[in-house]
């Protein structure tokens, strides 16, 4: 009965660099897949308000979103990996945004760009503005700012790439679309007589449970 010894350790980055110098690429399928897709995030050609101007600036030569592989703004949601909700989402526009999100193929990601897309921003107390797109679709990256600078959008994109590189393709940590039987369709709100119906997707978002301090 011989001792099997400690299990083989995963190679460190230094060891893999050494191997790569010798012409041996040591990787996993998951890593290769995530490396590829995180460097070709194709956003949807979709802008709502002034944040979209900054998004356009980020795609132009000075900021050059092509450095990150995301210059291919797709005019069709069928070809897009990422929706950048750039601007104020009015309640009249919200069903269209959810419909576009539903039409995008998995795996798909959402960036809420700017104060309005995050929370309604300066229009939060208005009757006609959605108080954040995360009421209806799941948001991966929130970029604060009013509007955010193009550098902030690039930073958000890099954070999204980081998130994609860390995602597992199998097991319980896999994204919903890799899970058998998981629903990937999000209900589109209907235009009601006084408000959108329902006013939020309760599976995605619930108002914070807070207790106001006495005298506040």
């Amino acid at each position: 009965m011989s001792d099997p010894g400690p299990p083989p350790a995963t190679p460190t980055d230094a060891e893999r660099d050494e191997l790569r110098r010798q012409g041996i690429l040591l990787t996993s399928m998951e890593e290769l897949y995530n490396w590829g897709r995180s460097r070709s995030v194709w956003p949807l050609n979709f802008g709502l308000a002034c944040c979209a101007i900054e998004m356009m600036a980020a795609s132009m030569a000075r900021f050059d979103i092509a450095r990150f592989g995301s210059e291919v703004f797709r005019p069709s949601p069928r070809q897009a990996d990422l929706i950048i909700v750039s601007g104020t989402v009015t309640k009249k526009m919200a069903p269209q945004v959810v419909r576009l999100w539903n039409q995008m193929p998995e795996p798909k990601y959402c960036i809420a760009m700017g104060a309005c897309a995050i929370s309604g921003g300066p229009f939060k107390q208005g009757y006609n503005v959605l108080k954040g797109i995360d009421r209806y679709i799941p948001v991966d990256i929130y970029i604060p700012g009013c509007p955010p600078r193009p550098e902030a959008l690039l930073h958000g994109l890099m954070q999204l790439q980081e998130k994609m590189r860390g995602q597992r393709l199998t097991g319980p940590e896999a994204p919903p679309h890799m899970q058998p039987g998981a629903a990937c369709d999000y209900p589109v709100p209907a235009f009601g007589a006084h408000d959108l119906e329902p006013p939020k997707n309760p599976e995605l978002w619930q108002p914070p449970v807070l207790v106001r301090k006495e005298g506040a």
Partner: protein
Amino acid sequence: METPDQIRDRLLARFPGAAVAVVANPGPAAQHSLLVGGAHGRAIAEFLRDDPALRLDFCSNATGVDWLDREVTDVASTTVPDPAGGPAKVVEQKTKRLQPGYLEVVYHLFSMELRHGPVILRMRTGNRSDKVTLPSLTPVWRSCEFQEREVFDLYGVVFSGHPDLRRILMWDEFKDHPMRKDYAEPDDYEWEPTPHGDVLAKAKLHYPAAEPAAAAPKEEPKP
């Protein structure tokens, strides 16, 4: 350009029986406006556009105002002679009456040809609920089209003769008129970090204060 009073006199001479009045603006701008009854509104608008001395060919702005019911106090002073022969007394009699609310549409008219303006035209509805129809001035000035739709959407004024009267900002299924003063917005308050004013009232409603037992004990004031 003629003053609003002169325009009113000409309008009354041209349209006998029309309700035309001048609403004075007491502010320093002194932009007095013409209040026109809805029955002759369309004819008066065409007259203002085609009259060679006015030629108001451009409507730069159409907007709405919501006037709620309000209580007006009328003061009537009467002189009562003193039977004893002394100086006559002035007796003031105050009567309160309820002025019913109405919706108002305001048009700002300019003349591109004669380079003058603005002439401000107002029209008022009968009330705020069922008599809300006014003549549309879109057939006279095409630039009113979207703005009259906006007034229809946000105030609920129905413009008869408008070529395409639909809601323009809110969706078609929407029932309310958000710019009316008694509009009740949907109760969708969410947490705010620093509420104040109306928002604070909503915050107290949605996030009531902690139970007094859970609150921190207050320090006793030292003598």
